[in-house]
């Protein structure tokens, strides 16, 4: 009979703060190797297909940027929420609403063209995401309704709403009955960064700008301090005069707007029209990105690239090895598990206690008192 015992460190371990994402990644690889072996594929071969081949050419790096952009944008917003101990897990819905709001111009006013179209679309996308995120924020502040459940329920509602739009009122009349809107006009398409080299578009730039901006806010501005204080001790925050309700709205609107921006960037950049499904679960994967990046916007950029690679790798193993692309989801889930587990090392030392082993360090006085 073995038992784990946690011993609180006097202060957080700087070493493990840095190391823990790497340990988590290594453990995920080991678990992944076991999984591939169980599926009857040589792990080395699988890893080559999964992690190396998808990023061995320049155009593939562009694909990586396309997948990473929405993950980073959403995760940067979510990191502020989670730092404040506010749990927005409905980013997937806010992403969809951003895509829908931003598409109002190209779908309903296709004759409106010019340089103003794109900025307006992006703005509308942010407004759409923020408005949708305002619902759980309002319910939490007015009625103290649990934001985890409401924000998640709204994801299902958003998916169904988009499904209705593209099959009903917004369906392309010339689309041969396919459930999709018209193709966006040229001025409504997010330009590619380097059209000669690959497909990556301005969405990736937005993601980097958002990450740096939020990093500055969190580390250099009063607002960031407010977020951290309210997150670690709401009572202390109240004494300092920081309002919790305002913070709920601030974090939800910010993360909603960023998710909405990600949504319209994806629709206008990578897809070019609205379809029944516009996201392979970006809003949920971004939660993993946020934690893997240690809720730090700069860490999130790196984490976003890693998770984007799991999407590309999933597609690669499906086409090359005939393994379901659900492998990607499994990798993502395992990664989050190991990240959370390794984070324990920052605050605690772990001791394995055998059944009969004498407890060398346990102070006898405490034992008796118990």
């Amino acid at each position, binding site marked *: 009979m073995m038992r*784990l*015992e*946690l011993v*609180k460190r006097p202060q957080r371990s700087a070493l493990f703060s840095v190391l823990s994402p790497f340990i988590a990644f290594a453990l995920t690889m080991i678990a992944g190797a076991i999984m591939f072996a169980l599926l009857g594929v040589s792990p080395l071969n699988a890893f080559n297909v999964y992690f190396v081949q998808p990023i061995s050419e320049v155009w593939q790096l562009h694909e990586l940027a396309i997948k990473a952009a929405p993950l980073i944008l959403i995760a940067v917003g979510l990191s502020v929420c*989670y730092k404040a101990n506010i*749990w927005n*897990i409905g980013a997937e819905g806010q992403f969809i609403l951003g895509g829908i709001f931003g598409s109002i111009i190209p779908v309903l006013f296709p004759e409106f063209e010019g340089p103003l179209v794109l900025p307006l679309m992006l703005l509308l996308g942010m407004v759409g995401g923020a408005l949708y995120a305002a619902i759980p924020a309002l*319910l939490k502040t007015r*009625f*103290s*309704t*649990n934001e*985890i*459940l*409401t924000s*998640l*329920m*709204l994801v*299902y*509602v958003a998916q*169904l*709403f988009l*499904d*209705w739009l593209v*099959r*009903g009122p917004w369906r392309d009349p010339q689309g041969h009955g396919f459930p999709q809107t018209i193709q966006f006009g040229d001025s409504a398409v997010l330009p590619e960064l380097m059209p000669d080299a690959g497909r990556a578009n301005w969405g990736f730039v937005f993601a980097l700008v958002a990450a740096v901006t939020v990093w500055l806010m969190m580390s250099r501005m009063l607002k960031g301090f407010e977020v951290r204080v309210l997150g670690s001790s709401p009572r202390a925050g109240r004494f300092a005069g920081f309002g919790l309700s305002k913070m709920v709205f601030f974090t939800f609107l910010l993360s909603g707007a960023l998710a909405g921006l990600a949504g319209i960037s994806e629709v206008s950049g990578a897809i070019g029209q609205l379809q029944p499904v516009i996201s392979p679960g970006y809003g*949920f*994967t971004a*939660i*993993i990105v946020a*934690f893997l990046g240690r809720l730090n916007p700069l860490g999130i950029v790196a984490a976003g690239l890693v998770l984007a690679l799991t999407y590309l790798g999933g597609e690669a193993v499906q086409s090359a090895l005939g393994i*379901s692309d*659900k*492998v*990607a*989801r*499994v*990798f*993502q*889930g*395992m990664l*989050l*598990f190991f990240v*959370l*587990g390794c*984070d*324990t090392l920052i605050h*605690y030392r*772990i001791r394995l206690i055998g059944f009969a082993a004498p407890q060398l360090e*346990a102070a006898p006085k*405490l*034992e008796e008192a*118990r």
Partner: protein
Amino acid sequence: MDITVNILLTIATAATPLLIAAIGELVVERSGVLNLGVEGMMIMGAVGGFGAGYLTGSPWIGLLAAIVVGALFSLLFAVMTLSLATNQVATGLSLTLLGLGLSGMIGTSFVGQPGVRLPNLDIPGLSSIPVVGKLIFGQDPLFYVSIGLTAAVMWFLFRTRTGLTLRSIGDSHVSAHALGIKVIRYRYLAVIFGGACAGLAGGHLSLVYTPQWVENMSAGRGWIALALVVFASWRPWRVLAGAYIFGAVWIGQLHAQAFGIPVPSQFLSSLPYLATIVVLVLISRNKRLTMMNTPASLGQPFVPDR
């Protein structure tokens, strides 16, 4: 009359998985642990149950597998949150994400395969009594399990010493620990019980409700079960009432779609989720009631000091 009976029967079938999963989660939360992984454990139970039933041809073995898979999957959450003291919200979320991915991968080869269905109870004579016969004596076995489980949990929590201990841990793990109660051990058992229930609820989906494997077939039911526990303010009999209200909403919108009511089907399909939000708002408006009933140490990690 027949239509009414049939509608009541379908409502019971829709309510049963919600009830089983929510009752399990209720025990978990009463012990002070918030496991947001219900959706993940449920879908793992569904795929495990379907797979075992499909491979062996026996729905009963399928059911057993669903329970075991759900319990094992919850053990992962227990080790993380109880032994490693990780954040319960984040860990529960990751359990759901992992469950949805893993079940999709495991279930790839099951898509489109015919499943096995758990037979309904059939007592000669009794089950053929008009109207009440089918309602009382002719439903699927898990219907009776769900009702029995609710009664058992009610009795356990409020009429036994162990139940009292479990609730005291949920209200103050520090005091319970000071009294010499093995907080972590109780919580392990509670979490595993919740996992077994969620797995069983998933098994109901793939062995009774729609005996086949469809990816993401739990369709948010695990989350609705979580909402039901809040809605019920942590009382078993209110979970029962809530599950049947939601079962009625779920079936109501399906019937409305079948009758061709001139409302887009997507709007009707979103009703259960919207109803969840409305109900949560209504119940949480009364702050004093919620404060009084919420287990006081719900969601807080606990590391015994020694």
